[in-house]
């Protein structure tokens, strides 16, 4: 069973060197007869930033939802810091405290203030004393320029602010790894940058991240490796400099050509 290390700020400090922060082996996922993931193998080392790119429907979101067990896998396994989290009988609630996820549509709790959104997990799940949870939440909000919004309800905030609060909410759990599911796709173009800046800062701070994105320029800047998904498989996996300039697979080339023609790269 995975334990929570108390007060460990660096997410993977106690990981044995052999184990990857996240390891996905032979992952399959079907919804009825529709097989969305057809065998995904991926290893993410601590402090690595992996970007998943691919057309809509290629399975990026489903992969992320499988990793934090929001969707049960059909076959294959996922290991977090060397321990399998997809085996039966695993405590999914405990696993999820280690894996933060940020959604495309923010999914903030509309009936709670920003501060309560951020402290709910620490106070109710990690059993952090309320005063301490509030102190930590305010420190995080301050770090991302959101402290003056602490008492507001989410519907008073811009989309960019809401998404930054959602990121803070996930960070408040001190996860070992952060999953980002197209976090800028629902934003107005002028609000994208403020959210990407937050992610960039997290990457510089050493946060391990698995990012599904349509922002190719961002992926090229930030990723340690980029994975191109098509038809439920990772077709090509390479450092961004290589994948974006000389893609080897024919499907990757076609996808990037379309993106370039659309002016997105």
């Amino acid at each position: 069973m995975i334990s929570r290390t108390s007060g460990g700020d660096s997410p993977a400090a106690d990981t044995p060197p052999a184990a990857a922060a996240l390891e996905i082996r032979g992952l399959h996922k079907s919804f009825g007869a529709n097989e969305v993931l057809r065998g995904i193998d991926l290893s993410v080392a601590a402090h690595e930033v992996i970007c998943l790119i691919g057309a809509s429907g290629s399975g990026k979101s489903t992969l992320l939802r499988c990793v934090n067990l929001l969707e049960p896998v059909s076959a294959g396994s996922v290991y977090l810091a060397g321990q399998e989290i997809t085996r039966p009988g695993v405590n999914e609630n405990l696993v999820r405290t280690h894996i933060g996820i940020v959604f495309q549509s923010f999914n903030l709790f509309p009936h709670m203030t920003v501060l309560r959104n951020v402290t709910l997990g620490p106070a109710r799940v990690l059993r952090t004393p309320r005063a301490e949870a509030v102190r930590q939440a305010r420190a995080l909000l301050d770090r991302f320029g959101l402290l003056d919004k602490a008492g507001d309800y989410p519907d008073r905030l811009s989309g960019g602010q809401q998404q930054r609060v959602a990121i803070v909410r996930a960070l408040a759990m001190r996860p070992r790894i952060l999953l980002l599911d197209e976090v800028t796709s629902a934003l107005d173009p002028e609000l994208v940058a403020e959210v990407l800046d937050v992610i960039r800062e997290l990457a510089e701070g050493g946060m391990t991240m698995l990012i599904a994105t349509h922002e190719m320029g961002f992926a090229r800047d930030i990723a340690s490796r980029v994975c191109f998904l098509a038809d439920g498989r990772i077709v090509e996996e390479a450092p961004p400099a290589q994948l974006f300039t000389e893609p080897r697979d024919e499907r990757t080339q076609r996808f990037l050509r379309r993106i370039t023609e659309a002016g997105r790269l």
Partner: protein
Amino acid sequence: MNEETPGSVLVTSRGPRLLAGASGRRGVVLSTASTVIVIAALAAIFLLAPGSRQVRHTFLNPADMWHALLGDPRHGYYSVGEALWLNIRMFLAAEVLILILALAVAVIRQSTGPVMLPLRVISTVYVDVARGVPLILIIYALGYGLPALSLRFVSSQSAAVYGVAALVISYSAYVSEVYRAGINSVHQSQVAAARSLGLSHWASLRFVILPQAVRNIIPPLLNDFISLQKDTALVGVLGAIEANKAAELYSDTTFNYSSYVVAAILFLILTIPLARFTDHLIARDRGRRLAGGAR
């Protein structure tokens, strides 16, 4: 509850809607005139009808209404006003129990997993049966059936207690469906967000889903409670001296039906404020949604 969005609330609250189309002085004059004409016409029909005198004497006799309201034990009839207090107590007791039982039923019916299956089946059968059987039959069944069982505690209660039990059984089935609609109205992405923080199924329900669900269903809940207030009158069939029963006893002694009108007026005084409050909440809700809020 919260102090924000005052502007939008006021604009869409019931005042302007009730007087819709009456903007400007000309509008006010026109709507006042038409209201007076309609009321005068209805009054004329009532007063000029061949049996008007008889009806007014039997149903609207001020002296009888006054006597029925206050009651007179020496002449063998109860005060309708005092009897209404029993309706209010039955309503309040039933309301609290309904809110609790209905929530339990709704949560059980929404649950997943094999462990809860027997409870789910029982809840589903309960809702089907309790909604399908007329309330008056449930009242008879409990009011006459339970005493006949001769059980120690169960069979020695007052008619009002059996009445409340019957109201709770019938209304909880309806209200549990209201709760269920409320729970379903909260988007699945909220569940995903809550679970992704490591909250358990029950914690998600308690902190994230139910608070939002309850906000969505307050108007339909109040609507059911308006109905519940009136239906406390049905408990009179078991002999409990509530307002309607007291009115009946008065008319039995005096052969004058004005007491029923008194009961009707008293029920109106109870239900109209709740109805207006429901309207107010619905209007506020709409105002909030128009303002882009989802709270």
